């Protein structure tokens, strides 16, 4: 059992702050690191994996720093996001080489076990350059597992996977977690994290925006005020009716449309057609605005 502790970590590149004063503790089980692209997830994982020095703060695994400490790799496995691998060798050779590099007592057996774990026995003697994206991902996984690490870090592991491969990897990660390992993976897709992670850490724009299990994160995301853009036969009458009702916290007439901020989303969507009918207003268009992941996340930060 291992615990990764990130303590007031910041990392900047010149004038750009990639990670801003982040503290989190990651224990056994599956943890999802969720955030839009460019939120600093990869930078944080690079620091956890000892490939980048924190500009401030510290990253430790069971009390040992990860930066400039090669011994940490005895208990740490990393699945990088980048595709770069030793393409000219076969899958089995690469996993075996990794086992040897870990100075394992029986590298052959360890490699065979890891290849079996990721279900790549059939293709293990083909050159990596002939592999599909999903196969490459599985071989990467095998290289990270070959020394039986207690901490496994995966950077965007589901990128480019088809649903079946996705399911397979999810099962595998669950199995790792059931063995008592600390598994952390990053993703920018809420559904992936929701299906897999026991706990979720949300990062936005370099900051640690939220933390908890997926229900809490879901609640935070659905309970935020929702924006709607409405076009109707009489925007002003509808605006007045909506403001009179408690579900709406603000309206604005702009660009020939009505912009509504709904405090209570469920009540709002229920009452909107009723109000329109009662006031003889015809609705032409009701569109939720800013539903993109980025805006959902940035709400969490501004909260």
């Amino acid at each position, binding site marked *: 059992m291992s615990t990764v502790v990130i303590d007031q970590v910041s990392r900047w590149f010149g004038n750009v702050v*990639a990670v801003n004063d982040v503290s989190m503790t990651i224990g056994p089980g599956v943890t999802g690191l969720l955030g839009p692209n*460019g939120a600093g997830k*990869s*930078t944080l*994982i*690079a620091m956890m*994996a*000892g*490939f*980048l*020095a924190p500009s401030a703060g510290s990253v430790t695994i069971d009390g040992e720093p990860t930066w*400039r400490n*090669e*011994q940490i*790799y*005895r208990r*740490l*496995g*990393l699945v*990088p*996001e*980048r*595709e*770069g*691998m*030793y393409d*000219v*060798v076969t899958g089995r050779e*690469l996993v075996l*080489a*990794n086992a*040897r*590099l*870990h*100075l394992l007592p029986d590298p052959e057996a360890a490699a065979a076990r890891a290849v079996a774990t990721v279900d790549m026995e059939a293709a293990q003697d083909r050159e990596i350059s002939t592999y599909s994206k999903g196969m490459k991902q599985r071989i990467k996984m095998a*290289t990270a597992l070959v020394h039986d690490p207690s901490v496994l870090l995966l*950077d*965007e592991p589901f990128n480019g996977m088809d649903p079946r491969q996705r399911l397979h990897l999810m099962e595998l990660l669950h199995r790792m977690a059931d063995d008592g390992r600390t598994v952390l993976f990053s993703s920018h897709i809420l559904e992936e994290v929701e299906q897999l992670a026991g706990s979720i850490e949300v990062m936005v724009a370099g900051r640690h925006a939220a933390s908890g299990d997926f229900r809490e994160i879901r609640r935070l995301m659905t309970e935020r005020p929702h924006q709607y853009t409405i076009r109707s036969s009489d925007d002003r009458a509808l605006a007045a009716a909506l403001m009179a009702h408690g579900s709406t916290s603000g309206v604005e007439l702009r660009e020939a449309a009505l912009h509504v901020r709904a405090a209570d989303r469920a009540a709002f969507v229920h009452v909107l057609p009723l109000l329109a009918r009662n006031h003889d207003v015809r609705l032409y268009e009701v569109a939720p605005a800013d539903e993109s992941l980025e805006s959902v996340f940035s709400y969490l930060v501004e909260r």
Partner: protein
Amino acid sequence: MNATVARLTVRGLLGRRRALLLLVLPLVLVGMAAVVRVVAGADDGTAVGLVGGFGLGTIVPLVALLAGTGSIGPEIDDGSIVYLLSKPISRFTILVSKLATAVVVALALGALPLAAAMLVLADSPGALVVPYLLGAAAACTAYAALFLCLAVVTRNAVIVGLLYAIVWETTVAGFVPGAQNLSVRQWSLGLTEALLGADADRFGVTAAVAASTGGALLVALTVAATYHGARRLQTLPLTSAE
């Protein structure tokens, strides 16, 4: 020294397309020597000019450049170096293992073909082959260490290395004799000159630096480049976000 690192490095070096270039360069040198031999016959002066000038001045640095940068540069570029660095092996061991591989490849494809070309073309190979082989071997080692270090430090190692080997050592040093004091080629030529002994004058071999100075500088460069390369490898920033 780690055998697995060395093996992966060899696969990377010889499995990629640049391996072809690595094989072509020595073939060009030996081929030219053979053609000149057939056309003009064996001659010491021509041998010293072609093998000592073109071989030691161009082929050896180019082979060492390809071997030195190629044994780590592509891995840093495509990110696969992460598989070596995420292991409980010191970065110094990784660098030395890669350097050893690069030196062996440079010796096999640079120094040995140079000796072969000398053997083909020289009229008195008994006097010339060994001094040139040892000089070229020393040059291969120092160049490989320098270019390997360069590949850790900069992504443009091949260009910087070419500028050094071609522009500085050949062109600048041709016009500004002082520049020859800072030239791996001249340092190793100093060794060759000393090994030739009294024959050096007869063959017209003169180096800008004495063998003792050249030898010391070659060792110093090799050690310094290895140390610095390992230091930089320890703090090589790797982020997949790039």
